[in-house]
């Protein structure tokens, strides 16, 4: 059983069906107008948006908070009630079948132009259908593109499944027409931040809970909170997950089914945008006219999409033995309370588990492997001062080697029978930037290409993250002693836990899993005392280590920046531009190997990690090295040393 838990190769996965195929062979109009009769939770009749609103406004919880706010601020209760009503008005969805049909029609056209195929695991759809009838359902898709939620609704409509209501960021509301269209297709809008606003929080959480508890519709939101610009999963945000788990914990429903959905794009619509954004070109504000300008994407090929509906996860079984639900017995359940530590840690762990479940079912295309290899090669070339690229045969041979390794590690690979029919002959390497003026501009435009490339590589990171951490730990440790390697693994893992999805408190499991995989592939021998890299394991370990190298260098450079250049008055806002400047300087001077470290995502993550580890402090919005304590100096040193070692 333990082996089963450790060996990802033993995971069974469903087959895919291309849902666009039927769209190419039959009328879109008929499809958009067809009879749509989804099964509902316990055969419930769907609830009108207006009725939902009044249920929320009449809820005990909201009444309580309105009373509280009114007492605290001295405002009339009616006044506060009105505000609550306005908040709800701004927030609420008004799902209309006609709009959904409109989208079904237009999206069919758009999807057929953009994508070769949209593959869905139909068994997953069947499981979802079953889950919806049993308990309220929460859908948790991965988030890589704006396309995600339209795509989700499109798929659910196609398979005659209850349309979800979707938590969307307020930024969409900027696009007047589109915002309303989305609202009518089931989106509800939440402000990006409402930290202290009790009333807002209360309306929001009651709204979500009412929909969920009564099973009116599946609730959909993105655990990652925002689109990942790097194709790596983001550390989960807990706010909404807390809200949707609450009805179970308080016994208001018997159970809740949470369904992780993995959406893998062969090529993400926004890929170039993301790279620019991370290099400091600000992201364009969402606007309707911008959307129309963006229509030129319609002429490009975005390959295929794989959507995998994962195994529904019962919240009840997640909470079994972890949460004592009696804690809600002594206070009326409608009085909002901060979740107890027990519940916070439960929700946090669950969130990580769910993001990992998303990761596991991400479909990887050959490009992911090729990008990984090309990037490594590119860096080697750069160090050697060459611009050679790779011979196709060599790339192919390496790709096959890597494919087998990926498979051993349990990756969900989609490997076409005929490979590389689109590859040009001769040598392959990441594209050449066009001739530009300054070296800095040249560097940045090259960085765009490298970051785009990296985003392909990142899709596969989760597969060998743990073995890679172990490989790096073996390199960094001063001896082969198991305990030393573990310590260094544990340090790396801890440091990178803002960067990658590493479940809190699972260091030992992760270490065991990594050892298991490396041993299984013959790269490592584990004795009582020691971990020894085998002869044939050298290549694997080298590959794995160099996968993490760019990240290590990124963290190192941030540390160096903070040690060498950070002024007294560095604010959080100034941090990224200042680091960027520092990095560009060093890159141009040839003192840094990886252009990738220009990524603001990497820089922010390393700052967050240093803050978390206490090496750096934030005082009144300013970033400061912790008062020279032993631990912070040690931390920074270790950080820097580690990277030098690697």
């Amino acid at each position, binding site marked *: 059983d333990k082996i089963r838990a450790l060996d990802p190769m033993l995971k069974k996965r469903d087959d895919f069906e291309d849902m666009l195929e039927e769209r190419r062979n039959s009328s879109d109009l008929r499809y958009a107008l067809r009879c749509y009769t989804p099964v509902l939770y316990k055969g419930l009749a769907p609830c009108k948006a207006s009725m939902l609103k009044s249920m929320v406004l009449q809820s005990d919880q909201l009444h309580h908070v309105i009373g509280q706010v009114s007492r605290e601020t001295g405002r009339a209760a009616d006044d506060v009630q009105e505000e609550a009503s306005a908040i709800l008005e701004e927030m609420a969805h008004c799902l209309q079948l006609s709009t959904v049909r409109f989208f079904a029609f237009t999206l069919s056209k758009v999807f057929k132009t953009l994508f070769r195929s949209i593959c869905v695991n139909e068994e997953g759809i069947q499981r979802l259908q079953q889950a919806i009838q049993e308990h309220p359902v929460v859908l948790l898709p991965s988030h890589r593109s704006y396309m995600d939620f339209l795509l989700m609704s499109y798929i659910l409509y196609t398979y005659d499944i209850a349309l979800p209501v979707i938590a969307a960021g307020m930024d969409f509301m900027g696009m007047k027409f589109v915002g309303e269209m989305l609202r009518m297709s089931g989106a509800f809008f939440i402000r990006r931040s409402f930290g202290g606003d009790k009333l807002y929080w209360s309306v929001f959480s009651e709204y979500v809970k009412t929909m969920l508890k009564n099973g009116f519709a599946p609730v959909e939101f993105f655990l990652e909170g925002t689109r990942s610009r790097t194709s790596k999963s983001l550390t989960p945000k807990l706010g909404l997950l807390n809200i949707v788990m609450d009805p179970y914990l308080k016994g208001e429903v018997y*159970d809740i089914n949470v369904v992780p959905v993995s959406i893998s794009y062969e090529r993400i619509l926004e890929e170039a945008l993301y790279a620019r954004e991370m290099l400091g070109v600000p992201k364009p504000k969402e606007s309707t006219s911008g959307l129309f300008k963006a229509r030129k994407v319609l002429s490009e090929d975005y390959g295929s999409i794989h959507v995998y509906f994962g195994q529904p996860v019962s919240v009840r079984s997640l909470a079994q033995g972890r949460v004592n639900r009696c804690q809600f017995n002594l206070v009326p359940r409608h009085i909002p309370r901060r979740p107890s530590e027990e519940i916070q840690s439960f929700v946090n762990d669950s969130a990580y588990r769910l993001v990992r479940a998303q990761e596991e079912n991400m479909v990887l295309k050959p490009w992911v492997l090729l990008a990984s290899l090309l990037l490594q090669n590119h860096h080697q070339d750069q160090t050697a001062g060459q611009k050679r690229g790779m011979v196709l045969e060599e790339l192919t041979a390496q790709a096959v080697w890597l494919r087998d390794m990926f498979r051993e590690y349990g990756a969900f690979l989609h490997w076409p029978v005929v490979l590389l029919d689109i590859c040009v002959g001769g040598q392959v390497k990441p594209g050449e930037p066009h001739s530009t003026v300054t070296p800095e501009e040249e560097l940045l435009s090259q960085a765009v290409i490298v970051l785009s490339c990296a985003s392909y590589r990142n899709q596969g990171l989760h597969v060998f993250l743990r073995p890679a951490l172990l490989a790096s730990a073996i390199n960094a440790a001063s001896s082969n002693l198991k305990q030393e390697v573990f310590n260094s693994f544990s340090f790396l893992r801890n440091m990178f836990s803002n960067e990658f999805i590493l479940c809190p408190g699972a260091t030992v499991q992760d270490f065991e899993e990594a050892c298991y995989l490396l041993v299984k592939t013959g790269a490592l021998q584990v004795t009582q005392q020691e971990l020894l890299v085998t002869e044939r394991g050298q290549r694997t370990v080298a590959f794995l280590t160099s996968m993490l190298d760019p990240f290590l260098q990124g963290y190192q450079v941030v540390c160096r920046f903070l040690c060498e250049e950070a002024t007294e008055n560095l604010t959080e806002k100034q941090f990224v531009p200042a680091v960027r400047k520092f990095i560009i300087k060093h890159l141009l001077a040839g003192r840094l190997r990886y252009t990738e470290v220009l990524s603001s995502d990497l820089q922010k993550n390393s700052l967050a990690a240093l803050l978390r580890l206490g090496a750096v402090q934030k005082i009144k919005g300013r970033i400061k090295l912790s008062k020279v304590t032993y631990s912070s100096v040690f931390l920074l040193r270790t950080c820097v040393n580690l990277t030098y070692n690697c």
Partner: protein
Amino acid sequence: MASNSSGGGSSDRQRIAQQRLRIIAGHLQGPVDGDSAILAAECKAQGSKTDVCREGKTVPRRRQEIMKWNGWGYSDSKFLFNKKGQAEFTGKRYRLSGMIIPGLKDWMEGTFGANLQHKTPATPLLTSSAVQPATLNKAFLEELKSTGIPFSHDAEDRVFRAHGHCLHEIFALREGKFGRVPDMVVWPNCHNDVVKIVELACKHNVCVIPYGGGTSVSSALECPPEETRSIVSLDTSQMNRILWIDEKNLTAHVEAGIVGQDLERLLNESGYCTGHEPDSMEFSSLGGWVATRASGMKKNIYGNIEDLVIHIRMVTPRGVIEKSCQGPRMSTGPDIHHFIMGSEGTLGVVTEVTMKIRPMPEYQKYGSVVFPNFEQGVACLREVAKQRCAPASIRLMDNEQFKFGHALKPQVSSIFTSFLDGLKTFYITKFKGFDPNRLCVATLLFEGDREKVLQHEKQVYDIAAKFGGLAAGEDNGQRGYMLTFVIAYLRDLGMDYYVIGESFETSVPWDRVLDICRNVKARIIQECKDKGVQFPPLSTCRVTQTYDTGACVYFYFAFNYRGLSDPVHVYEQVEHAAREEILANGGSLSHHHGVGKLRKEWMRDTVSNVGVGMLKSVKDYVDPDNIFGNRNLL
């Protein structure tokens, strides 16, 4: 039946007494106790004025002469399928006795997937050789003999007192399996006898387990298997006299061994009642009610046992505990009665109790209301509780139980009645649009002055109407209450055909009622599935009592165990899970069944560490040698 009474408005007490007799226990032809002569000498009842003669005595020393040794109730009353395959209830004691119940077979087959071909008959006779030989304490025995208090170490007597009515207990009996059983049974005749027995037990270090009606469903009567001392079962059944009635203060002083039906019947003869009617009242005893904090169906008018008790006398190893007066309320530190009530036989034997009595109600009327769904029904009960206008009894059955009730309808004699029934069904489901798979029914019992009853009735029906309720007649209501008396018999029928089940209860705040009902029922179904039960279980509930701040909820749970190797274990796992679910949903560990040994593991969480410590220290003081060693509660 109750509607008959509407004929005589200012009816004489005699007639009502007769009628009540029929309602509760009109069957009593108490078998003559041949041994009574032996006992005649000893106890002089203190207040001999209303001392009850022994003719009406229901419970003989040899209980097995009239009651089943391996099932519920009287030997002559049971469900069976006759040669035509129709269900029938035998005997003459109940309203249902001698009747054919045509719907029961289909219901059993449909609900459980049971089959009349697949029988699981019980071991017919008790084989004494299978019973562990008695461990007798010679010295104790000798001294006991000298007191003249009757006792027995006959295997049948001992086995009868080794169990309550938990499923696992009855299941084992039916298989002819006996665990640790008491080594002897004693039958004290009065308070002083008990004092003597307890003194002797202390002197000779003998374990005493008090035994009242034997209707426990908490494993409270189970002998701890690790007990090495001689175990004496102290059967209180012969202490069953009403010692006096005080009409000025409306109290009665009663020996604690009296069973509910005798107490009511005897008080009725004088025109009074206690109004305490737990579902087990045919067999359960006053002392048992006190020891478990019992609750009666009509508590809305008369109160629960803690409201009814004025004075308690209990014999403990430290001596006799009692209060010095009968003031209606006292501020004299923590109420010592509350150490006694709920002590579950761990501190001593309750011997005499002074209880409140009330004049018998002039008028009784049943009623029922059909609601479109359970949610509406609960909302109505909540409103009734809020307005504090609950009738003597108000119970809300869920849809499954409503169907169950229907299945128990006896064969109707006239075409007209069956036509009327059809018309009613048509009206409710077709005309009013109630979904037969969602509707539920509340049963009502009103009591008091005729005029007030009618007024009260109107008030309650008006509230019900606001929640979509439709009056559904007296007959439905009455049948609902009858069901509670026969349902225990029905379990024995199920056990003949691979079906096992039980009920359990809790109390819960109003805002949690719907959640707890839904979640516990769902948990039962899920657990059955997970544990490999091959057929969908019956998982149903009813709200049986209302309070200002919450309600008492009863769950019934049964399943067909064909294909399971250890059905009782599966049953226990499911019940355990259901109890966890109850607790996780804000329900109490028990509303009135008590803790016993079955629910002990949750006591600490229920009353906190300090709470357990308090109870322990009381036990340690009162009974340092654990003479009352049934190991209940703590």
